């Protein structure tokens, strides 16, 4: 009760501050237009972030549930039956339910958390603020982008509650398994809902992406040439380009799959006898879907990763009090990654019967992507070198990102080489690889961003002691979970096996699986602690008292502590220099708004 009492006055003052700032713009805002159907990019960003957090809790919880099954296949957890009923009869997860959990975990985290929650959040919040724009090119489309995402979320969430369960054919939903209700419970109504939800999601991401691109190209403030943009904005730009060019391909793939499921077409189906029933479809190609899926699916990896790279570059530079090393090289490597991202999709398909010659071209292009990735790593390392590093929670997460990106990137060199992929394809090695490089690393980038820009978003700080605990438990946990998992893959253990007891070859890792399960529960609990810290600090965190708490150069820190809709009260500041003049000519930092001095040295 006392807590509630003390929240109250604070909330009132928040409103007051907002009100003061807002009278400049002369339009009345109701609760609905300000917090629900808001067209303010900052509010939309927060909506993406909070929706993403809720999805992350759901998706993370799913992983804890199936880790319980993997670690303790013989144990009965009564609570599971209480909560999930027929899906976990006798306290043991049923195979159908296990595969539904795995599928939803992947879908939710890849699309709803790390695409919408990561790039949706930070593209929205940072693009106008760091470019010096009052809002997005089209605030209305931007709002629609969130609400399409919301609609997608509602559909996906409701598919969890139907009697045949949600989609259960893996997050890649390969047909024929995903096309035939006879082949799997999850391929009944749940799969249609998955496809419709993804269609909504794609609309959302296209609306957002087009908006980000046009904002970046057209709405930069005076003096903000493209090469004076912070790397965060460049990363968001390439992310948006990737999304706009590749998501429509997934949409077409999804629509054809809907046709195959409901209208009797044969795009993906041929020569099938399922459950004793001979299907009439002939002449389709199941592999076609994989091409369409991975034409998005691989760029998607970079859609997830690039924003994290951009934010990490910015955060490492600010907190090392040193310019980012090799700005143009960073830019060039982002560009190279963006181009190559479109040319490597078939490396997910080396063992589908792909023509070996075609496969060899994809090997070459895939391993080529390691070059720009290596450049980025070396540049981050050199940025830290001879800096004066402040370990804020954001910095720690950024350093953690680099460490994980190295570890996960190097195992990519194994999998990208088709010869080794023959052995490692679809084993636990793959699971370990992409969780480290795409899952956990991107999460680290996202968390670094949340810790770093939280003061800008809410005018308060996150509790940093909790932040430190969060970081240390998460990075130690992430390595404990995923490092030994590579050995399971080297032993040839296939992914998506929920119980190895019937096998001779895969039973040697029982103890390891238990350890991984225990650690993943701890890591999940610590994420809940972060979520608590997040919501608690929105209302009761330590207040930000200075405009530029991190001593950063970029424009978002020239706005008021709690900027209103429109961001700057007076005129938008003019930009005179690149954003990375840290430690130049003996000065700690020189904001972008400061004109070049007469005696200033050149870089």
């Amino acid at each position, binding site marked *: 009760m006392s807590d509630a009492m003390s929240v109250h006055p604070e909330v009132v003052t928040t409103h007051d501050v907002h009100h003061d700032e807002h009278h400049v713009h002369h339009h009345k805002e109701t609760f609905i237009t300000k917090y629900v159907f808001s067209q303010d990019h900052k509010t939309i960003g927060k909506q993406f972030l909070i929706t993403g957090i809720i999805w992350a809790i759901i998706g993370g919880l799913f992983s804890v549930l199936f880790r319980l099954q993997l670690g303790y296949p013989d144990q009965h957890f009564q609570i599971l039956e209480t909560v999930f009923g027929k899906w976990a009869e006798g306290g043991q997860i049923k195979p159908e339910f296990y595969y539904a959990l795995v599928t939803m975990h992947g879908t939710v985290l890849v699309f709803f958390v790390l695409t919408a929650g990561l790039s949706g959040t930070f593209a929205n919040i940072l693009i106008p603020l760091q470019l010096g724009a009052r809002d997005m090119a089209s605030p209305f489309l931007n709002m629609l982008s969130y609400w399409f995402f919301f609609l997608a979320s509602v559909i996906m969430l409701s598919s969890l509650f139907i009697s045949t369960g949600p989609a259960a054919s893996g997050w890649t939903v390969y047909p024929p398994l995903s096309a035939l209700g006879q082949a799997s419970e999850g391929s009944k109504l749940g799969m249609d809902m998955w496809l419709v939800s993804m269609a909504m999601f794609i609309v959302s991401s296209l609306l957002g992406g087009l908006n980000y691109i046009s904002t970046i190209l057209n709405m930069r403030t005076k003096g903000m040439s493209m090469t004076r943009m912070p790397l965060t904005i460049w990363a968001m730009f390439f992310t948006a380009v990737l999304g706009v060019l590749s998501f429509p391909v997934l949409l077409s793939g999804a629509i054809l799959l809907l046709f195959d499921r409901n209208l009797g077409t044969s795009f993906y189906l041929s020569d099938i006898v399922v459950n004793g029933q001979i299907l009439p479809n002939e*002449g389709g190609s199941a592999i076609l879907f994989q091409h369409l899926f991975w034409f998005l699916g691989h760029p998607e990896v970079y859609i997830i990763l690039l924003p994290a790279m951009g934010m990490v570059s910015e955060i490492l530079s600010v907190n090392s009090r040193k310019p980012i090393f090799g700005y143009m090289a960073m830019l060039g490597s982002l560009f190279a990654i963006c181009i190559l991202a479109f040319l490597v999709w078939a490396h997910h398909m080396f063992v589908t019967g792909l023509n070996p010659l075609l496969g060899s071209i994809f090997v070459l292009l895939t391993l080529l992507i390691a070059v720009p990735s290596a450049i980025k790593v070396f*540049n981050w390392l050199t940025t830290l070198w001879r800096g004066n590093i402040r370990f804020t929670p954001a910095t720690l997460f950024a350093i953690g990102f680099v*460490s994980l990106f190295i570890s996960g990137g190097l195992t990519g060199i194994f999998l990208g080489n088709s010869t080794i992929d*023959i052995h490692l394809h679809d084993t636990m090695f793959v699971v370990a690889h992409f969780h480290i490089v795409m899952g956990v690393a991107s999460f680290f980038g996202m968390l670094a961003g949340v810790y770093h820009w939280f003061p800008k978003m809410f005018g308060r700080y996150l509790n940093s002691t909790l932040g430190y605990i969060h970081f240390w438990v998460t990075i130690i946990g992430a390595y404990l979970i995923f490092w030994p998992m590579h050995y399971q893959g080297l032993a040839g253990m296939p992914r998506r096996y929920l119980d190895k007891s*019937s096998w001779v070859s895969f039973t040697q890792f029982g103890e390891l699986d238990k350890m991984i399960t225990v650690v993943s529960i701890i890591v999940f609990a610590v994420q809940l602690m972060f979520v608590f810290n997040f919501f608690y600090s929105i209302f009761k965190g330590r207040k930000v008292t200075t405009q530029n708490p991190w001593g950063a150069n970029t424009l978002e820190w020239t706005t008021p502590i709690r900027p209103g809709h429109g961001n700057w009260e007076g005129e938008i500041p003019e930009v005179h220099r690149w954003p990375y003049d840290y430690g130049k000519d003996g000065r700690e930092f020189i904001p972008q708004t400061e004109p070049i001095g007469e005696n200033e040295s050149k870089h």
Partner: protein
Amino acid sequence: MQTFFIVAILTLGFLITFQIAKASEYVAVLRGEEKARKQANKINGFMLLAFLIVGLIGVYYCNEELKGKILGTPASDHGVLIDRMLYITLAITFIVFIITQICLFWFAYKYQESDKRKPYYYPHNNKLEVIWTVVPAIALTVLVGFGLFYWFKITGDAPKDAMVVEVTGKQFGWEFRYPGKDGVLGKKYYKNIDPAKNNPLGQLWDDEANHDDVWLEQEMHLVVNKPVKLVIGAKDVIHDVGLPHFRMKMDAVPGTPTTMWFTPKITTKEMRDKTGNPNFVYEIACDQMCGKGHTGMRGVVVVETQEEFDAWLAGKKPQYLVANPVSTPDTNKKDSTTGNTTVRPVANGITKN
């Protein structure tokens, strides 16, 4: 009850952590935020260094614990190449891993904030950047070169003397077909599939080549040191013929046959001695998620000598005879006495008409 206690302990632990965290924030404000921040900075800098050292020891320990649990000697000729490629890649990437991780955490520790240090304004250095573009490019060229050399060896055409086995995946098991004496797999059409009529693969009985084809489930026999070409298909959804001990893998796609070939080098019996495990068998693991029974989609491969194999196959009845027991004993007898050559042209002529 147990669950309740765990939840209670977690909640309590969380509350305590939270109170400490909140208190430390107040203390920081009282003592001067700058001072508290610097102290936290020192602690985290030290932790980063400790993490590096403990982490590297952990990497070593993990390897010691688990290296015995991964697969031993590859049991096929292709497996040898794949393992070699794996170890070449491992050597190069491990060096990069060690150097970059040490740099990362060591720099973070060494250059932690200090009042004495001025950060070095160092925005770019073209020479350095060229060096670390070219060096990885060369390393990767080496890896691509080796990789593709082995890749084309492995995926090239099977030797002419290779034996052929057809593998068909279904929910949730494996079916095999041996071409019999003629060495040719007869034609099939999926709409003829009818297990009730003893035609699980949809073989066309008109096709003479089908008459000696042997159909089996769950267990595949191969001859040691004899190349084998697998013709792979699926009935319902995509499966994958995963052969971890042979390091081979190929998807089984309905409607699109795929192939792979390799030469088994070690018999099952030899492998039992090698591993010291009397229950050892080569397993076929489905590697492509195929529905609720995916976990148990297991097949067995028996690698044996030519004599053992011949004796085993001789005991199997062609599926044609299983499916057509009454109408064909006469023709069959002729078949076995006069040989296939006399009968086949006639049968082929019939199917063509």
